[in-house]
């Protein structure tokens, strides 16, 4: 089986680079985008198995980025990250077609579980 390609979109570079490294250690291919726009352009150029998107970003917001990602490729599952205690944006993201959302700071195992589920929706539940 090919390696799973993950796109990480987050303005917090320290966070996203470390997360990418951890995913690579676990055999994923991870690419980083520092803001919404570059994430969208990368997604337009190449295909990814799953996208992980931070909702709190300067410039193009997480939810707007999500909308545009869904315009380009409806099938790519998006897992949202939020620093908020509130679930409001997360709910809105779900309505827009995101697969799920997770709270920061992340539990890596939880993330891996979600990625697995996203790639194999039939295993859910």
């Amino acid at each position: 089986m090919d390696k799973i390609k993950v796109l990480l979109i987050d303005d917090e570079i320290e966070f996203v680079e470390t997360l990418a490294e951890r995913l690579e250690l676990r055999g994923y291919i991870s690419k980083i985008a520092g803001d919404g726009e570059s994430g969208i352009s990368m997604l337009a150029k190449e295909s990814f198995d799953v996208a992980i998107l931070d909702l709190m970003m300067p410039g193009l917001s997480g939810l707007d980025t999500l909308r545009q990602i869904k315009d380009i490729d409806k099938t790519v599952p998006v897992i949202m990250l939020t620093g908020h205690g509130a679930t409001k944006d997360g709910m809105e993201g779900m309505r827009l077609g995101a697969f799920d959302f997770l709270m920061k700071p992340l539990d890596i195992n939880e993330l891996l579980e979600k990625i697995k589920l996203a790639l194999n929706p039939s295993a859910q539940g």
Partner: protein
Amino acid sequence: MFKKITDTLFFLNTEGQDHYRVLRRNIIVIMLLITMLPLVTMVVINSFQYRSHLRNQIIEPLYAMADKTKHSFELFLDQRLAIIRFISTTYNFKDLTSEQNIKKILISLKKECCGFVDIGLINGQGELISYAGPYSLLGKNYSEQISFQETQIKGQYISNVFLGFRKYPHIVIAVQHLTEDGQTWILRATIDTDFFNTLISSMGFSRQTDAFLISKDGTLQTNSLYYGKTLEKCPLELAKITSRSNAFEGIDNKNRKIIIASSTFSIADYILVIVQPQSVALKSWYALKTEMAIIFLTSLALIVFAILKMTSVLIKRIKTSDEHRENVLTELQHAQKLSSIGRLAAGVAHEINNPLAIINEKAGLMGDLIEFSKDFDKKAKFINLTNAILNSIDRCRKITHRLLGFSKRIDVKIEPIHINQIIHEVLDFIEKDILYRKIDIKLILSDSLIPIESDHGQIQQIFLNLLTNASAALEDFGQIEIETKNINNDSISVRISDNGCGIPEDIIENIFDPFFSTKKEKGTGLGLSISYGILKKLGGKISVDSKPGKGATFIVMLPQKPDELEVLNG
């Protein structure tokens, strides 16, 4: 100046209850003055005006009456004088000396005019030389008597009433006749004074009105109702009566207030006096005065009652509104404080969350690297270390999430909420305390609880308040029971019971009042009042049931959807 006065009157620098007492007193005094002053002034002016008006209405007619009566008397006396004068000119001295003639004259006089008792002829030396009448007076000498001397001087004479020789009250009228040959003689007649009394009674005075004649030296000439019989001395002050020939008010010898009208005779030394007691004359005035007094006193009582009542109500309202304002202010301040704390907490939580996420990933990566490398000396120790970091981060994450969650309760935000979930959230928050004190939490949460719309944050706060109170009331190892259920499918209820010390009966009524606290320094006394306020705003209700020593049960009811207006106005 005016402002200074009102300030002094209404805003004295007194504190607390004293302030209301002073305010109450001042309002009462001012209102009494404002209402009573015109009333009293009006009553006094009215009373004086009416009295003087009435007095004129009574005194004037009384004086007119006195004058009229005097005229009747004068007319009568004048007639008698005219008759005697007529006889003296019609008959000559010689005719009159005849006993037969004079008897004839007396008979005609008695027949034609009433009152004549006798008639006699007196010569120039004062000797009675001819007489007709019931007594034997012939030969008596009158030269020493005033009647004789006065007649000699004035030509005619009307005497005061006197007993004379005959010991019977009568008056004498005498007319002097001067003959052509220079001789003088006097024709003298006696008149019965009974006639005076008849004349007075014929004037038609009221029964309590006294009318009588007095001589200028104060002797009663007729019987008086109040002051004695004929020829007795009249006790009234004569100087006053004779000095003014009109009517006035006075006090008699019996200290009775009277109205006196008098009229002085011109043809005799008589004064006609009419006396009316004021109690009779001013009868209508006294009746009016009583009525006025009754009306005045009744209005006085009504005014005082109304003022006292109104002032009490007013002061009570002011007090309530002051208290209300103070409470609102305090609650507002409290809310603002909470809001600031909330915002601060949210900011801190948010700012900390990002570095926390980085630390989390870095530590995670460290752990990963150690775990994936095969030859690492202290692999186990390092894995333990990174796990410890990750655990600490997890604790921090919980704290920031809680802070963010609780900071959102400040403004009302109606959204679909799950009560069971909120109860879990709140329990998470007080978990430490509960665990530490080994309090047993028993949850009876309904699975089929209807979803309701309300404010997540505010409801969180209410349950936090109630659960904190419940745990404060408990000893270690106590129990809290939380039950949720549907009511009529349009609202839900949450029951929170503890088996702690309970609420004393005497304070159970006050527990929802602001600032009521049993925690002394520890509590603000706002917890339950805020819960009460929030629930009211959200269309819910809170009730309490407690017995001292048997624990307390709070029941919160929430509607499926709050009334929008309530929320806006709340």
